[in-house]
């Protein structure tokens, strides 16, 4: 019960902080809407053509691009936001006050990112809804339960990476290298703008080594073709595997980084 109240307080604090920058706050939503329009305009270059590489998804390029872009943005938050918010707390001098409260250390360290993640879910949903309602994205065959289950597994896996980045911040105070790596691999190899099958054969093994390539592939099949969880078991298994490895590794790394920061007295350093 107390943990739920703490989580709610962390989300509320994030909202109040974000909303205090009014222009930026509403500008972000406008930007999210314009991105959907941008995907639509980009997809118009293909006209009614249906590239062979998209045949597996039984849909058009706009829908393919919308799902890839929207979900990549959201999962990218999972990769980066824990570290980014921790950097902000360090710079603002608020991390130590958080760490001397009755809140468990892991929640105090990762909790500041919860608002952005919660907002990300809403924004992603709204982007998909706008794309479908006004710009013709075809989600009529979507299998939502399968997509949500796969999305949740993906979030656990990317949050694991995100917590690793946070551990990195506790030790090195900046997580830029890990954020950069996450962004580059995500947008170059994970099939955000084009199917992994369209990559040169030599690069495809790199793509399939990333959890997000499997996530986007599985989610597109669920949302565009209506694939069931039974059909998507392979993606689910791979994502569960990533989650099973990344979750304990990141928990260990966070704990070790915190212990180190407490030993060296660097918890409040930035």
């Amino acid at each position, binding site marked *: 019960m107390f943990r739920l109240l703490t989580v709610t*307080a962390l989300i*509320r*604090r994030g909202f109040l*902080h974000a909303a*205090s920058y009014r222009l930026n706050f509403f500008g972000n939503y406008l930007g999210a809407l314009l991105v959907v329009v941008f995907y639509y305009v980009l997809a118009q270059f293909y006209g009614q053509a249906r590239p062979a590489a998209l045949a597996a998804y039984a849909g058009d390029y706009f829908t393919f691009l919308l799902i890839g872009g929207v979900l990549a943005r959201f999962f990218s938050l999972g990769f980066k936001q824990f570290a980014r918010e921790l950097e902000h707390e360090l710079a603002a001098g608020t991390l130590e*006050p958080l*760490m*001397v409260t*009755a809140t468990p250390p892991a929640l105090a360290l990762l909790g500041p990112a919860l608002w952005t993640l919660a907002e990300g879910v809403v924004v992603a949903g709204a982007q998909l809804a706008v794309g479908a309602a006004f710009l013709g994205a075809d989600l009529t065959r979507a299998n939502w339960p399968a997509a949500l289950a796969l999305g949740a597994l993906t979030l656990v896996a990317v949050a694991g990476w995100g917590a690793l980045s946070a551990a990195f911040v506790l030790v090195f105070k900046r997580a830029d290298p890990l954020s950069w790596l996450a962004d580059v691999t995500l947008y170059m190899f994970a099939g955000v703008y084009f199917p992994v099958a369209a990559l040169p054969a030599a690069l495809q093994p790199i793509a399939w080594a990333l959890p997000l390539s499997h996530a986007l592939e599985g989610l597109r099949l669920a949302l565009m073709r209506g694939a069931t969880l039974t059909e998507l078991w392979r993606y689910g298994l791979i994502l569960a595997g990533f989650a099973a490895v990344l979750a304990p590794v990141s928990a260990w790394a966070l704990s070790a980084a915190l212990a180190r920061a*407490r030993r060296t007295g660097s918890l409040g350093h930035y």
Partner: protein
Amino acid sequence: MSPAIDVVDLVHAYPGPRGPVEALRGVALAVPPGEFFGLFGPNGAGKTTFIRVLATLVTPAAGAARVAGWDVRRDAARVRAAIGLVFSNEYSFYGRLTGRQNLEFFGALQNLAPRAARRRAAELLAFFGLERAADAPVQSYSTGMRQKLNVARALLHDPAVVFLDEPTKGLDALTAEALRALLRRELVERQGKTILLTTHDLQEMEQLCDRVAILEAGRLRAVGAPAELAREAGRSVVYRLEVAGPADGLAERLARLPGVLAVEPAAVTGPAAVLDLTFEHAPDADLWRLFADLGLRVVRFGPKEEGLVTALKEFSREVPE
């Protein structure tokens, strides 16, 4: 009754470019519940490290420390629930949030239910005279207001033990005085909390603390009542007296009071006279009656800073490295 703070052979060193830098070297200390305890020493003596160890922000290399009966290593969560920490950095708030929002947020993180957090935040804002600024962003607060909010945050969950790391740093004299009175009267005398204070203001230390520990280069040099330490250091107790009215013959009259060893005029500023009185022992309340008998209009009377400074110098010299 078990001590509120119980420290045994506490050792800690930070990594440095030329090897470990020892911050605490075998500190042992017990502070009973309800005591206002001061930690005093020069910069780099290890005072802040000591508080940070007790607040579970730093894990000690060796030794043991218990706060409110809980071990800082094994029961860190219970220690955190039992303590309030006033940071020396008053910029430790979410500046774009209001004072009320900050307190309600930190209250929730101290496991207060939303209604209780709101009520407690309102109580503390009123108590510290911040009601009118309660709904303004903290970044618009003055240093004094931030520092009051800092103390209010530490009291949200009504902790038994409060650590104050330079709580009056940067405050003007009046605000500092008001905060001191509040800390002593409200928190210790009325609520019975245990307070551990670090400050560079020696008058504050002598005015507030029941006992003081002198920490120097990570070692505890002495522990005792401020006046006791000054006396042990080979000094009698020096108090500064400021009186309104003519100073003619005043020094001679004061010198005849019982327990007074010497009287030295320190300054005459306008209609007021300032004198340093050296006592054999710390004066008691009877002295006020004697002042009244002499017809003195006392503006200010309190220990002069030199007592603890001398004690620090003396005790630092006594213990060889």
